[in-house]
Every structure is written in C-alpha cells, then in structure tokens.
C-alpha cells in the first residue's frame, strides 16, 4: 500500500501541485481583488441588488447572502472554483483508475503481491490527501484576504466536500466505462452538469432583496456545487448541506469499491458493443480517420453548445426585461464581456458568446491534441508507414478541429437565435449568431497554437497548450477582476474579439481584429504543417 501510494504520488508530483496551487492561487487572487474592488458596503449592496435582479448573473456566479465582505467573496468565487476542484478530482480518479488499467500498468501492479483493492484504496488516499491539502491552502487564501478564520474554514470545507463528492464520482466513472477517455468525459460532464443544475436552480430561485439573498429552487439541491453554496460561508456558516456532499462521496466511492471488488481486470460495467467487420466508405484516409475518431466527442460538445445557446437566449431576455437603474450591473457585465457598450443585452450576449468561443476552442483543441495521443500510442507509426505524409496527417486533424470549433459555435448561435425568435426578438437572435461567429477566429488561434506545439515541441505539447489556453481564458475572463496590466490583457486572443453589432465609428477596427486573428491562426497551422514534416516521430 505504502509503495503503491508512493508510486501514485510520484506520478502526480507535477500535475497535482499545479492543480492544487493553481486553484488556491486563483482563490487568493480573486478574494484579494474582490476585497479591494468592493471594499465599501454601499458599493457591495448596490452590486448585490442588481445581481439578484439578474438571473443570468446568478446562474453564472451563485447565490449571494448578505452584504458582508466575506459573503461577497464567496458568492464571486465558489461556483467557479468548485468546477475546477471537481475536474481535478475526476481527472485524478481516472488517471489512477481506468487509465492505469488501460495502459496495462494495473496488470503489473496486481501481479505483484498486493491485494486486489489496494490500487483503488491508494487512489482514494491520494485523492483525500490532495483535497485536504487544497482545503488548508484555501483556508489560508481566504484568510490572507483579511476574512475571518471561521468563515474561511467553512468556505474551504465546502470546496473540499465538493472535491470528495467528485472524487467518488470519478472513481465510479472509472469502474463503469471501458476507456480512460470515456471515464474522463463522463466525469467532466457530471461536473459541468452539477454546475449547470445549480445555475438553473439559483436563477429560478426567489430573491429576497431586503436580506440580499436568494432561496434557490430545487435543481440547486441536486448538485454538490449547489450544496457547497448553501453552506453560506462567512454568514450562516452552515455545515449541514456539506454532509450531503460527503454522503454522495461515500455512496459513489462505496459503489466503486463494490464493483472493483467483483469485476475482472479490464472489464467494465457498461459493456462493449460489437462493431462492423468492415469499414464504412469514409474511413479510408487520414481525414476520414480523424473524423471517425472525433465525432463521438463532437456530439457531446454539440449537445453542450445547444443547451448553452438555448439557456443564454432565454436568460438574455430576462436581463433585457429587468427594468431598473442598471449602471452598476452593466459594469460587471462589461468587465465579463470586455466591451464598453452600455446596452445591457448586448453586453450580456457578448459575455455569454465569449464563453461559447472558449467552449468551441476547447472542442477544437481536444480534436487537435488527439494527434499526440496517436503518436505516443504508436498508432501514428502504423498509419504513417503507409502513403500519408506527416504534414497531411496534421492538416487532417486541424481540419476536423476547425469543423468541431465551427459546429459548436454555429449550433450555439442557432439555438440562441431560436430562443430569441420564440420570444419574438429576431433582431437579438441575429445579433447572437453574429456574436457567436466572430468568436471563431479567436477559438482557431488556440487550435493553431496546439498544432504548432504538436509539431515543434511534441513531448510537452499537450500540457503546454492547455496551460496556455487556461492562461488565455483567465486573462480573458478575469483579467479586469484581477487588475492585470494592459500588456497582459492584450496578450489574450479573447480580448480581441469585437462586439456585435460592430460600432459604426470603428467598423474598420472590428474587421481588422477578425482579420488579424484569422491570419494568425492560418499562419500558425501552415507553420505546423511544414514543421511536423521535418521532425522525427517521437513516441
């Protein structure tokens, strides 16, 4: 057990600290920033009143609870951080669960004199340890922003509780699915569903404008992230909702243990279906293969995009119909959408579509970076022993990545348009589609960065690209909140997406931004195609 745990820690010695310290750092920075930006109570009161009248913001951020500084911080950071914590845990569970089994390492481990349950038990210990460490750092992070210790502890406990629940979910996903890719998708999807459920429940909740809080509707009570919000750190400091998370952790973890104790090595609860004995017509080229490998994931991305489009269309309407003095809320939206328009709905559409662009970039990157898996897995060696050239092979993946990005953007734009149409707002519908489409060049810049990384720095390409992407997203979405210098803000492609409709006095500037982003993406992909042709295949 000790050796196996040591092995797991060794394997995670880079990735886990990145997750833990990254999350703790983000928490510390945001908490500090909220404390300085919204330092005075009157300002906070105004912001919270407006937020409560804006279901869209509530859906993105969470449930406010009173005007205390700590409470405002908690409202700003908890839901986002809980998503990160959830992903950290499901990925951890897969890395040491299904992925280990898939690579055949589990076979080596269990052939040694260790008990059948030792691998999963050591994963649990590692996961619990990681969450506890995160809890300690998070407590310190809250406290560092000058918040009371008791509330800091509760806030950190809410993160840990969500983390443990998703650790259990991840362990179970590894037992249910037959591949690490499927386990990771299932885990990540459940985390996002938990976020979406509480988003819906919070947005549909009943606001209490006197006490500046909101009683969330039932969907929030189906989500570990929702339970964490209900702990209301720094005000109610209520630990009871967290027991629900712990119960979920015990339930899912227990189920995983029961399955693990009973099943064969390599088997999964969800069975494998038979496949056709000969290939369909498409599967005869690198492009056909890239498409065949990507479309199941693309289906998932598309469903996500459709839901996001429909929800944002519906929410935008409620933003628009909210009739109140909306200067402060506009500030918040403007900072999220990094636009200077004062029209609330336009700012809201830009904010949502900026998220859509990021989702589309992630879908494209996933398709693009699959190539590295092909190479390390040795499948590229087999494929490229045939006539395809490495340049064409990369280009095929870049093509499928472009298609994935485009599909996500178009589908979201269309569903948002349909939602507006249903509310008899065709103008806003067209604006949504337009805003979605102008996100495409930005998303493609990220995809093309992935392509270059694959061609030039294959060994670190996956980690480097996702890290750059994460930095770009953090700068793009939270750059203002974190009060980063202008030079840093300008470095993120997300900052260069123009707002639709383009301002009449700066049409040229808007088109120039689109043109430059497109040119960068195209140039980078050309460079990658050329560069991959002149390097060794490196497993």
């Amino acid at each position, binding site marked *: 057990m000790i050796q196996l745990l040591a092995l797991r820690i060794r394997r995670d010695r880079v990735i886990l600290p990145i997750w833990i310290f990254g999350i703790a750092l983000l928490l510390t920075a945001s908490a500090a920033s909220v404390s300085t930006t919204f330092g005075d109570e009157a300002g906070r009161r105004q912001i919270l009143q407006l937020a409560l009248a804006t279901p869209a913001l509530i859906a993105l951020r969470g449930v406010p609870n009173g005007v205390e500084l700590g409470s405002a911080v908690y409202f700003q950071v908890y839901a986002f951080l809980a998503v990160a914590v959830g992903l950290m845990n499901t990925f951890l569970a897969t890395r040491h669960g299904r992925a280990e089994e898939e690579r055949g390492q589990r076979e080596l481990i269990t052939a040694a004199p260790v008990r059948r349950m030792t691998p999963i038990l050591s994963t649990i210990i590692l996961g619990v340890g990681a969450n506890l460490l995160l809890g300690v750092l998070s407590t310190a992070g809250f406290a560092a922003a000058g918040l009371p210790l008791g509330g800091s502890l509760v806030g950190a406990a809410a993160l840990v509780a969500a983390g443990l629940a998703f650790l259990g979910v991840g362990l179970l996903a590894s037992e249910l699915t037959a591949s690490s890719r499927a386990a990771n998708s299932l885990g990540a999807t459940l985390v996002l569903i938990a976020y979406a459920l509480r988003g819906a429940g919070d947005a549909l909740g009943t606001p209490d404008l006197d006490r500046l809080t909101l009683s969330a509707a039932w969907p929030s009570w189906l989500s570990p992230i929702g339970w964490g919000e209900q702990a209301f750190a720094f005000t109610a400091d209520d630990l009871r909702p967290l027991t629900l998370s712990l119960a979920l952790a015990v339930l899912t973890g227990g189920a995983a243990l029961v399955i693990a104790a009973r099943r064969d090595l390599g088997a999964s609860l969800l069975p494998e279906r038979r*496949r056709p004995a000969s290939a369909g017509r498409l599967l005869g080229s690198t492009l056909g293969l890239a498409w065949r490998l990507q479309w199941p994931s693309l289906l998932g991305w598309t469903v996500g995009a459709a839901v996001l489009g429909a929800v944002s269309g519906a929410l935008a309407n409620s933003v628009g119909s909210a009739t109140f003095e909306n200067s402060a809320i506009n500030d918040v939206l403007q900072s999220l959408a990094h636009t200077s328009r004062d029209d609330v709905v336009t700012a809201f559409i830009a904010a949502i579509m900026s998220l859509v662009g990021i989702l589309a970039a992630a879908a494209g990157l996933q398709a693009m970076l699959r190539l590295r898996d092909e190479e390390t897995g*040795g499948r590229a060696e*087999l494929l*490229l022993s045939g*006539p395809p050239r490495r340049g064409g092979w990369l280009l095929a993946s870049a093509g499928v990545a472009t298609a994935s990005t485009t599909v996500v953007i178009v589908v979201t734009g269309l569903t948002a348009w349909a939602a507006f149409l249903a509310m008899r707002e065709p103008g806003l519908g067209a604006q949504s589609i337009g805003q979605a489409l102008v996100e495409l060049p930005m998303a493609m810049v990220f995809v093309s960065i992935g392509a270059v990384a694959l061609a030039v720095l294959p060994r670190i390409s996956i980690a480097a690209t996702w890290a750059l992407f994460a930095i770009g997203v953090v700068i793009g979405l939270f750059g203002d909140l974190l009060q980063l210098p202008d030079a840093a803000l300008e470095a993120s492609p997300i900052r260069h997406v123009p707002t639709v409709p383009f301002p009449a006095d700066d049409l040229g500037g808007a088109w120039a931004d689109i043109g430059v982003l497109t040119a960068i993406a195209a140039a980078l992909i050309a460079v990658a195609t050329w560069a991959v042709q002149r390097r060794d295949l490196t497993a």
Partner: protein
Amino acid sequence: MDAIEVLGLVKVFGRGRSSTRALDGLDLTVRTGEVHGFLGPNGAGKSTTIRVLLGQLRSSGGSASVFGRNPWDDSVAIHRDLAYVPGDVSLWPNLSGGEIIDLLTRLRGGADAALRTRLLGDFQLDPTKKARSYSKGNRQKVALIAAFARRAELYVFDEPTSGLDPVMESVFRAEVERVTRDGATVLLSSHILSEVEQLCERVTIIRAGRTVESGTLASLRHLTRTSFHVGTAAAADDIARLPGVHDLATEAGQLVFDVDTDSMTGVLAALTAAGITSLTVTPPSLEELFLRHYGDPKPDAPAVPVDAR
C-alpha cells in the same frame, strides 16, 4: 538494384550529454526478391534502422535508400509499395479489427477482397471486436492481415510473431513464402531463430548500432565450429594437437570437441586413420552463431569458444 541499401547509417537521439548513439555506421543490403533476416540483441538498433527506412526518423549520417529513393524525402512513393508490421502493434481502441484492416489497406489503394477474407480465416481473427478487447497476438494479426491483404513490393516486419502462437506463426511463414514467390522482398527482424533459419536466405547481424556479420546463412555457418562426439582409438592428445580443434574433453569414453569449419577435412582424415566406433556431428546452429555475436564484449574482439550444448 537492391531493394534496400544502407551505408554507414548513424542515428543520434537527443543532444549534448544525454544523447544516445543508437546507430553507429550501420550497413545493410537487402537484394530485391530475397527474405533478409535482421538480427541483433535487444537495443542493437533494429527498430531504429527500420524507422529510418520508413522515413519516420531522420538519419544523422550515412545514407539509406529504399527502391533507390531517399526514405526521408520520398516517403510517399516508397510507402505505396511497402507494408509494415511493428513488433508492438497498437490500434485505435474504438475501431473494430475489420475497420482497421480496411483503413490501413485503403491508404495503400485498397485490399484484395478475396485475399482479405482468406486471411481472416487463416489467422482466425474475429473482425467485429473492438480493438480495445484484442489480445496482443490478435492485435498483431490485425496488422499482419492489413500488410498481406494488398500486394506490396517490400514487406518490413519488426518482430512480427512475438505474440503469435505456433499455429499462427506457421500461417505467417506460409504468407511470407507466398509473397516472395510473387517476387516481393522481405526484411524480417526477429528473435525467433527457427523462423529466420526457415525463411531467410541472407541475414545481417548487428550489435550496438553496427553491422557485425552479413551474408548467406551457409557462409555465416562457416564462421563457427562444428561439434564432434566421437568414439575412437585415437589418443586425445593427438586430436587436441590438430589444427582447428578446440575445447577437447572426454565424456563417457568418447571424445567431445569443436572443430573450425575450415579444418574439418584434416580432422576427419585423422579420425578415419585412427578408426571410428561412433560419431555424432552437430552442425553449427544459428543459435550458436548468435550467442557468439550477442555475447561478445566487443564486436571486433577475437571469437570466444562456443558453449557446448
């Protein structure tokens, strides 16, 4: 023209201090139409050589050509007429074996449908299963069927039978014999000596990135010793003094010794003159040839005695 011509090939992985010189002046000539065995201990550089020939690695020095073309610059033209099976086959886990066979053959222009069906039967592969659930041997079969299901000028096999059972191994041999009858060339890297002995006309043995021996099996056998078990009236000392006799010992009244292949005539004449009551002559096996080269501390060191079996 030779199918493969490699001269002084060098491949260095990495830079600076941590670099590995995997190939260090390797020579390899594979004549058109022959089955060429490519042998050497683990880490000798066989797979590296093959990857250079496939244009997947760029050589750091020396020259390599396949069908007279440069494998790095001209890979597409070469690969149209080439079929490759790696030693450790990894497949797309979500595709079925049948889908993968079709994909790989279509890239080269499409499988011969009748041949594909026959091969599926001969190799006893269920093409409807997802590749994820195939055993190592079955994964190897998928790659072998994909290689054999369309005619190629050159077949390159890197330990193709390492996961196959003996029945499947014989199917593999039959297929190699079939394609060579049709005039194809085969480069076969293998650790299974019986396979090499049975299939290959010529072999190249490499060690630490250099060629140590190359030629027909018969000519290589010449370089080793034949072992004798003789019941004879001849005095042990007399025999031991003959040129080319090594490691003489007495076992159960018989003389046991090894003879250099060149000195066989003289030794036989001496034995015949003294009278022979029983005689067992064991020809040098490829294994002995191997052990000799694999076990050498340096490739150019003087030959060490071959262990008696």
